[in-house]
């Protein structure tokens, strides 16, 4: 078995032998030959362009004094970077920025290792039956919606939830975790762990399964105990996957998820729960300042793109395969 490398979809382009495309073949001849393939891709292209790339051009409103009714996208005045300058003197925006980055940092420490530990546990179970049962159970919440997850947490930890029911029955004072802004970061992280950590273990499990068992045997014969084998074989074996996912997460630092925060914003207040995406929604759509909201969204998109490119570059410099490699 080969080492588990994850490579970008872009790399895969060269996997199958290309059709005999002689460089000189005239495009009309190629179209005559390939029209069924073009026809097959047409519905997908229609949707991808119609609902992704064409709307993406609408980001131009971020540079306009956009008047939805009187001007529209073609009749509104250009104002340059005014909205972006306003963003950086807007305390709400800065708070969303700070909240987003602190949640990302917090989850890197407290969420990120959980799928790895879970995969190590699953991998160490000697009974295949027990292992597959536990896998089925921990993957399940991944398929629940955020509305559902929050409803479930509300019933468990909320003011009228099960935990408080028990606390009060035992004579203690109840705590409403669902509305407490001070512990909100703990709440969202445990929700994320409950929902996604199980499914996140899949990729580490695959990496663990791909480690050559002979390495373990050789180490054991040389006298390495189970902890030394974990440290010197298992962890180095899955390091490429860990680095890759860490990079993906760093590149995605501005994305902490929208629904989870949006749905709980009214319960805990915007002070703790305002993140980038909710800011875009509230400043743009809710108040109707589409140009201002679009500027915040565009800022996030551009910074996010730079982050992911930089993270990938860093991975290459550290000698790991990144998300994509230079062709």
């Amino acid at each position, binding site marked *: 078995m080969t080492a588990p490398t994850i490579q970008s979809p872009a790399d895969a382009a060269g996997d199958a032998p290309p059709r*005999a495309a002689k460089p000189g073949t005239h495009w009309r001849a*190629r179209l005559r030959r390939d029209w069924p393939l073009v026809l097959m891709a047409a519905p997908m292209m229609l949707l991808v362009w119609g609902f992704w790339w064409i709307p993406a051009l609408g980001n131009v409103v971020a540079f306009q004094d956009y008047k939805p009714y009187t001007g529209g996208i073609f009749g509104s005045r250009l104002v340059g970077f005014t909205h972006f300058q306003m963003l950086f003197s807007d305390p709400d925006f800065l708070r969303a920025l700070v909240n987003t980055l602190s949640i990302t940092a917090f989850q890197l420490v407290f969420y990120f290792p959980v799928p790895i530990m879970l995969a190590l546990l699953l991998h160490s179970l*000697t009974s295949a039956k027990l292992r597959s049962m536990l896998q089925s159970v921990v993957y399940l919440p991944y398929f629940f919606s955020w509305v559902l997850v929050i409803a479930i947490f509300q019933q468990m930890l909320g003011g009228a939830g099960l935990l408080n029911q028990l606390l009060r029955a035992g004579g203690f004072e109840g705590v409403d975790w669902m509305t407490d802004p001070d512990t909100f970061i703990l709440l969202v992280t445990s929700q994320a762990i409950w929902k996604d950590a199980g499914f996140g273990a899949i990729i580490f499990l695959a990496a663990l399964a791909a480690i050559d068992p002979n390495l373990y045997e050789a180490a054991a014969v040389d006298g390495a105990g189970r902890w030394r084998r974990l440290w010197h074989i298992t962890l180095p074996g899955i390091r490429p996957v860990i680095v890759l996912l860490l990079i993906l997460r760093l590149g995605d630092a501005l994305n902490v998820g929208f629904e989870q925060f949006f749905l709980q914003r009214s319960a805990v207040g915007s002070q703790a729960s305002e993140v980038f995406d909710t800011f875009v929604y509230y400043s743009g759509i809710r108040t109707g300042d589409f140009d201002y909201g679009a500027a915040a*969204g565009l800022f996030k998109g551009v910074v996010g793109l730079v982050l992911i490119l930089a993270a990938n570059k860093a991975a290459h410099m550290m000698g790991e395969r990144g998300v994509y490699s230079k062709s």
Partner: protein
Amino acid sequence: MSAVKRAAWEERPTVAGRASKGVAVVVIALLVLFPLYTIALTSLSSSDTVHRVGGLVVWPGDGITFDAYEQMFRNPVVLRSLAVSLGITAVGTAVSVVVSVLGAYSLSRPGSFGHRTILFSVLLMFVVFPGLIPVYLWVSAIGLRDNYLAIILPMAVSAFNVVVLRAFFMSIPQELFDSARIDGAGEFRVLWQIVAPLSKAVIAVVTLFYAVAYWNNWFNAFLYLDDTGKWPLALVLRTYVVESAPLPQAAGLSEAPPTLAVKMAIVMIAIVPALIIYPFVQKHFKKGVIIGAVKG
């Protein structure tokens, strides 16, 4: 995956090690299953029981009743939202799977006309996003407000799913394509008679991903459906259960906020489809379908 046997060189597991592992397994399983159990039990309890307990029912023994489900299904808003969700999920998933399989097949034949452009416009979706506001303005501008298409079309193509399918199609031995072509089969026929039957597992997984995405989606509905009569179940779940608001247009039936048992019945209805489909598709995860795809 075969049963894992302890190798000859491996030490005997220590008692403490086995015990702590056992505890970990039980605790992790309970963290997922216990909330589901108590929610299910509450939805099956009478309102008297729920009232006496003062919240979620943990111990069975007070008998099981379907009162809450009856009450829920008598409510036209819930019933209609269930139909809407089922409809959106069925139509959306069908559209998405057909479009993605066709597109991914086209993308799995490099060197063809326009291949690079098509591939690029799909792969770029992983790193460049149009943003909430531009999409919102666009969908509103082309007149899809209050139209179910506004929910389906913007999420109809998932670049991830297309890449998963494409990677699998590309792993099919080239000889199969060559021999089919020599026999005179066109692209559509190759896809339908050779590629699709070989790719049942990966298509099943992608179908699950799309179906779950449609079933769970509420934000598009929230953005684009002004008419509360068109709401899908996820919006009802949010309003009725998370926000505890009385439902709109529930003429005379539930002026008061719903009881806990009815709320939990709605939660169950939102969970059940996933629980039903999941076992059928879950076995394919183990075949490494997804991992193989992620590898490229």
